[in-house]
């Protein structure tokens, strides 16, 4: 029994220590961010985390929008209100699916790559050699990746929503014959800029910070062996996904809940 308690205590302390380290790490990296805006390092990272994630985001956004159009139509047509699919697709995407699905895809595509890359840099002593050259790895390696991730995710989420709405319109209007004027005007009147669009953007900014933070820290803090890197990469995807889904509920409750 006491051994069991000891184990729980040790695990808790270990996790708390890791959490503390990761907070210091984020603060240390964030300090360098103002100096890096528009530097070559930042642009490079924005390319590899953002631009290279575009394909998966656009394709997923398109299909999710198309499925929303199809499902929305089959349900709404029973009530004769199929014109409302414009508003349904837009609200679902802008408020929820845009930020959440983009964050999940980002964790799988860019987050895992960040963790593996930084982990390998650690295992091959590249981070140590930076330190020994008098270059802080937080400035050279970590900060550009943090700021790139923070910025890339909200942008990707917007692109996801836009492509999704286009996909929904393709299915609803072009294929199933919903009147186009009603589709767009319903959407325009139902979607509020600050309540829906802005809240969606805030969500994606929060997810961007959390996912990038987890990914970069897992890489930096990994055990520098092949098993260690693989475990860290898995943790990045698992922790990011859970954090995104959990935080989404909290944010939705705060933004849209009527207490």
């Amino acid at each position, binding site marked *: 029994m006491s051994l069991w308690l000891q184990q729980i205590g040790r695990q808790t302390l270990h996790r708390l220590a890791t959490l503390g380290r990761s907070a210091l790490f984020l603060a240390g990296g964030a300090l360098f961010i103002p100096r890096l805006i528009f530097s070559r390092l930042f642009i490079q990272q924005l390319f590899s985390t953002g631009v290279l994630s575009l394909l998966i985001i656009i394709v997923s956004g398109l299909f999710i929008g198309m499925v929303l159009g199809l499902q929305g139509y089959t349900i709404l047509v029973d009530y004769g209100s199929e014109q409302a699919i414009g508003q349904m697709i837009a609200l679902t995407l802008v408020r929820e699916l845009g930020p959440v699905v983009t964050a999940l895809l980002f964790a799988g595509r860019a987050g895992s790559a960040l963790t593996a890359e930084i982990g390998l840099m650690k295992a*091959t002593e590249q981070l*140590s050699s930076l330190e*020994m*050259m008098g*270059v*802080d790895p937080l400035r050279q390696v970590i900060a550009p990746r943090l700021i790139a991730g923070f910025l890339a995710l909200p942008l990707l989420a917007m692109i996801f929503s836009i492509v999704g709405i286009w996909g929904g319109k393709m299915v609803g209007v072009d294929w199933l014959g919903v009147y186009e004027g009603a589709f767009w005007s319903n959407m325009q009147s139902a979607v509020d800029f600050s309540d829906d669009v802005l809240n969606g953007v805030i969500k994606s900014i929060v997810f961007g910070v959390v996912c990038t933070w987890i990914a970069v820290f897992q890489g930096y803090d990994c055990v520098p062996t092949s098993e260690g890197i693989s475990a860290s990469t898995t943790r990045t995807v698992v922790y990011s996904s859970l954090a995104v889904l959990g935080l989404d509920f909290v944010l939705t409750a705060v933004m849209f809940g009527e207490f």
Partner: protein
Amino acid sequence: MVQASSQNFVEIRDMSFSRGDRAIFDNVTLRIPRGRITTIMGPSGTGKTTLLRLIGGQLRPDSGHILVDGHDVPKLKRSQLYDLRKRMGMLFQSGALFSDLTVFENVAFPLRVHTELPESMIRDLVLMKLSAVGLRGARDLMPSELSGGMARRAALARSIIMDPDMIMYDEPFTGQDPIAMAVIVQLVRLLNDAMGLTSVLVSHDIQESLSITDHLVIIADGKVMGEGSPVELRDHGSDFVQQFLQGLPDGPVPFHYPAGDYTEDLIGGGGR
């Protein structure tokens, strides 16, 4: 304020360091003379690489002083430490070249980060250092295209690009073929003399190290077992030093990992 002797570039005094419950160094005192090649030897796992990391300030000792050119490394502020590191070069065992940059860009990297030199001057400096290690023609290759020996030479060019006062080599001969090894042995000596460097070598390749070293430190079990010139250590009274330098399989360092009684183990049966 701890005073350092000007003859020694690095002085370690009463330094202890442990990882968890395991003591790696226990009140170690040693010196690394200025302008010479010092080799630190010892069995695997005695913390030779850890010692280099302590000197470079990547690890902090539990107690004691580590003076590098008069600066007590564990007491330096982060910015002072980074400034001091610009005067130290380190060659890692793997080379640690940046895998996304060409050889040229790898060598130019410290200049680009630390200086505002014009591109033409960076080019000249990089080519001079690459020529010194014989890799001027390999400037456009990526690290993945280099052999192990070439990667280490490229990394060596990078670690001397800022003209450091001291360079630390972590196992530079390990895993090299005889030709690559001879090239690196020669480079260590030449660079030390030509650039007036202080060189610290961590190695357990006895023949190669003894052929170029001026000062030898043997560490084991967290202590300095012997320190002096290769000639002095050849006549050293310690059994351990003799076993190590002659590479004898049994001696103070036993052949057998500690175990219970052999007969009892065989006859007693039981589990594993």
